[in-house]
């Protein structure tokens, strides 16, 4: 089978399931008894197994198969999910991730899983692991035929009774499929068909629906009545291929009936019957969990769309808006009230349409956040710290382009908080803080921006230490440091070549640090700031634009030409007279609040053709900044602030300096967007 065309789908889905495995395992670690989480884990593992087997990645299928064995025992409560088991499963998930990524990169799949497989086998066989030996709830080899083991209800029993009365014999068949059987449901179906020919199937364990969905291991049980002789059914079933063995046991109905009566009134705690029926005594918490799982399933309903298609959709909407503006003008000039009225309604629809299209491009930050709980857990273990991560506002939405880029800086910030921020438990206790450190990751909307905060209640950043280190490393001079207030001193951590960790650990402190985070955030049009108090903790606050496709910009005029300057890089706009311009070494500068700022005459810089004399003496200056550097741009007129949709200039005009793109204005004209960075060079 040519599986290449399914490769992309396989990779995507595998990643999703691995992510859900990670999340569920974390939850399982907290609530080892939660069967709904276990079921979810089992489903994910099972799906990965099925997919990888179909795609021919046997190593993945093998490992997930072994995982399933252990998970099944957990599900049947024959094992308890202790730390050792969860750790092992986490390692398996890591190995699976590695293998999936290798496949994605087109590399050799071979990751050595033999150690993990052995470990899983050991756990499955009940060999003593670090803690909590498996509870010997039931001997698996010897299936007891108690009523509650088969979980027969009264209807089943009465059917059995009638069958016996009419001279039929009841059996329980334990059918075992061959190892490596791929189409288990098909085999199960064949078994049912064969049995239907010679008798009647009363009940199966697990239930028929589960058999159809392959929600079972290699064996299943069938309660069956027939008039045929004992071994007939066994013979027929063994003739079906891939059936390894069939065990037949006669059922004594009278005995069952008696027991069932005596069992009445007791709470049925059926350990071995692995039906998916949730126990009636499900408490509120479990209900709540189930509800969240349902929600997860619901939110999973989506369609994958190429981002290019969304871009062209947005183009079309933009065009619609422009044409609507033209219609508006026609309506006004020709004084057609009916037309104006219709256009007003159209206006509302197009505005809605525009915002919907924008929303379609948005994805919740949860997509990035969801990998952090696992990371924090592992890091905390590695660092021997106790840390509790709180994540808030996962539903906050950001443009896809921003989401793709924001992951690395956040990883960096969180690692920093864990490594440098939160202290060791003993130190915390000594300081009178709770043993467990609190790290939180919070996202929320603020106007046209999204704020992401990484907070910890650790030791904070000591401005004195920063001052000393900064001078030591030659980042700044002693005099500069003396002039700084504490908040500015702490901000020195964002300068290149700065790392304060006394000991360089594997986690962070390798010299490339916060400056990389800052440049990445700034490249996304955002800003980062830090607030800290010694021994109370630090807050890193990232402010990001909602989208990179639409930005707020200031429209300005030079002669008859209109340009857009991204609002993010604008400091202020001021009015000056020609006398305010001084020269320093033949460069024109102005003084702004005591600071010397170089100025650029945009008309000269862009060779704008002179078409009109400037009437007034006043000059408009737009003060822009990149990092700490400022610069004044002299323009003829300020039009105003506007939301603009960024478009590229295309292949032919790529690489033109000073211009970063173009946008279409409401009147249909194209305005160029200035690249402040290159303008200042």
């Amino acid at each position, binding site marked *: 089978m040519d599986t290449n065309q399914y490769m992309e789908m396989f990779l995507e889905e595998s990643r999703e399931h691995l992510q859900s495995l990670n999340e569920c395992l974390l939850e399982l670690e907290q609530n080892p008894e939660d069967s709904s989480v276990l079921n979810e884990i089992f489903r994910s593992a099972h799906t990965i197994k099925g997919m990888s087997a179909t795609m021919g990645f046997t190593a993945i299928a093998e490992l997930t198969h072994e995982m399933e064995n252990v998970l099944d025992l957990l599900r049947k409560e024959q094992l308890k999910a202790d730390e050792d088991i969860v750790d092992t499963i986490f390692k398996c998930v890591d190995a699976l991730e590695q293998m999936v990524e290798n496949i994605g990169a087109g590399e050799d799949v071979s990751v050595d899983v033999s150690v993990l497989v052995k470990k899983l086998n050991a756990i499955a066989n009940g060999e003593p692991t670090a803690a909590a030996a498996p509870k010997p709830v039931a001997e698996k080899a010897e299936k007891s035929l108690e009523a509650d083991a088969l979980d027969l209800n009264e209807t089943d029993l009465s059917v059995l009774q009638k069958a016996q009365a009419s001279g039929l014999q009841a059996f329980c068949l334990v059918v075992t499929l061959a190892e490596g059987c791929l189409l288990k449901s098909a085999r199960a179906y064949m078994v049912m068909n064969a049995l239907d020919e010679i008798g009647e199937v009363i009940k199966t364990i697990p239930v028929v629906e589960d058999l159809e969905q392959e929600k079972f291991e290699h064996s299943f049980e069938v309660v069956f009545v027939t008039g045929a002789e004992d071994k007939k059914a066994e013979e027929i079933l063994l003739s079906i291929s891939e059936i390894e063995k069939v065990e037949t046991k006669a059922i004594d109905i009278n005995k069952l009936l008696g027991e069932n009566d005596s069992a009445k009134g007791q709470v049925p705690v059926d350990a071995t019957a692995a039906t998916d029926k949730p126990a009636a005594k499900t408490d509120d918490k479990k209900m709540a969990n189930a509800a969240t799982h349902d929600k997860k399933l619901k939110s999973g309903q989506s369609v994958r769309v190429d981002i290019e298609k969304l871009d062209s959709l947005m*183009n*079309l909407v*933009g*065009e619609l808006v*422009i044409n609507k503006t033209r219609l508006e003008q026609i309506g006004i000039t020709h004084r057609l009230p009916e037309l104006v009225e219709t256009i007003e309604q159209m206006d509302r629809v197009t505005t809605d349409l525009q915002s919907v299209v924008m929303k379609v491009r948005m994805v919740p930050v949860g997509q990035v956040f969801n990998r952090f709980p696992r990371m924090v857990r592992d890091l905390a273990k590695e660092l021997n710290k106790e840390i509790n991560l709180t994540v808030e506002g996962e539903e906050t939405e950001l443009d896809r382009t921003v989401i793709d880029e924001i992951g690395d800086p956040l990883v960096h910030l969180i690692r920093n908080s864990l490594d440098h921020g939160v202290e060791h438990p003993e130190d915390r206790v000594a300081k009178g803080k709770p043993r467990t450190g609190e790290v939180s990751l919070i996202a929320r909307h603020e106007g046209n921006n999204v704020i992401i905060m990484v907070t910890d209640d650790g030791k904070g950043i000591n401005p004195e230490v920063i001052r000393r280190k900064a001078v030591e490393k030659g980042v700044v001079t002693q005099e500069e440091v003396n002039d700084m207030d504490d908040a500015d001193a702490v901000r020195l951590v964002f300068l290149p070549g700065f790392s304060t960790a006394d000991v360089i650990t594997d986690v962070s402190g390798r010299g490339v640090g916060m400056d990389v985070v800052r440049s990445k955030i700034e490249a996304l049009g955002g800003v980062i700031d830090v607030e800290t108090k010694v021994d109370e903790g630090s807050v890193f606050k990232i402010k990001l634009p909602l989208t990179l496709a639409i930005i707020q910009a200031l429209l300005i005029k030079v002669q008859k*030409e*209109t340009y857009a300057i991204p609002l993010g890089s604008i400091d202020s706009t001021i009015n000056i007279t020609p006398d305010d311009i001084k020269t320093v070494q033949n460069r024109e500068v102005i003084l702004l609040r005591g600071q010397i700022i170089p100025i650029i005459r945009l008309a000269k810089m*862009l*060779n*704008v*053709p002179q078409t009109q004399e400037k009437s007034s003496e006043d000059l408009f200056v737009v003060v822009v900044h990149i990092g700490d550097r400022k610069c004044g741009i002299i323009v003829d007129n300020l039009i105003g602030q506007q939301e603009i949709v960024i*478009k*590229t*200039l*295309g*292949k*032919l*005009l790529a690489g*033109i*300096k*000073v*211009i970063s793109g*173009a946008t*279409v204005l409401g009147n*249909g*004209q*194209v*305005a*160029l967007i200035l690249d402040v960075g290159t303008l200042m060079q």
Partner: protein
Amino acid sequence: MGKVDNKDAGANREIQMVAFKLNREEYGVSILHVQEIKRLTDITRVPFTSDFFKGVMNLRGSVLPVIDLKKRLGLPEAEYTDDTRIVIVKVDEISIGMIVDAVTEVLTIDSAHIDTPKAISDGDSRSENTKFISGVGNLENRLVIMLNLNEIVGISGDAK
């Protein structure tokens, strides 16, 4: 495009051309390359580009580069009139608008009636502008100069 035309010349096929005027001469490009023809609209000048590069225009929401074809071919300039049109062509996935004086009609020329550019270059084949010409169509006393769009669009190297 030049290659295509030469091959067609051997096969005696008919070629459909969009014909337009630059000053008093008639030019043509293969209809297969023409996406649409628009009236002159606002064109935004882009700094730091060659002088024949007129700027960018808004084509239904996307930004399209526009050149002045007369400047590109080194012909004398003239004021834009009511007849001035922008012919939007697509070559190698690149769309570009070309400003022409007027679009006349869609012509069908038999490839037998197309001469190679050498015939008109009166010996001086090194002339800068002959590289833009792929042939000359002879249509009952009308001469249609056929343009080599690859050369005309290949302005990325010239843009400074």
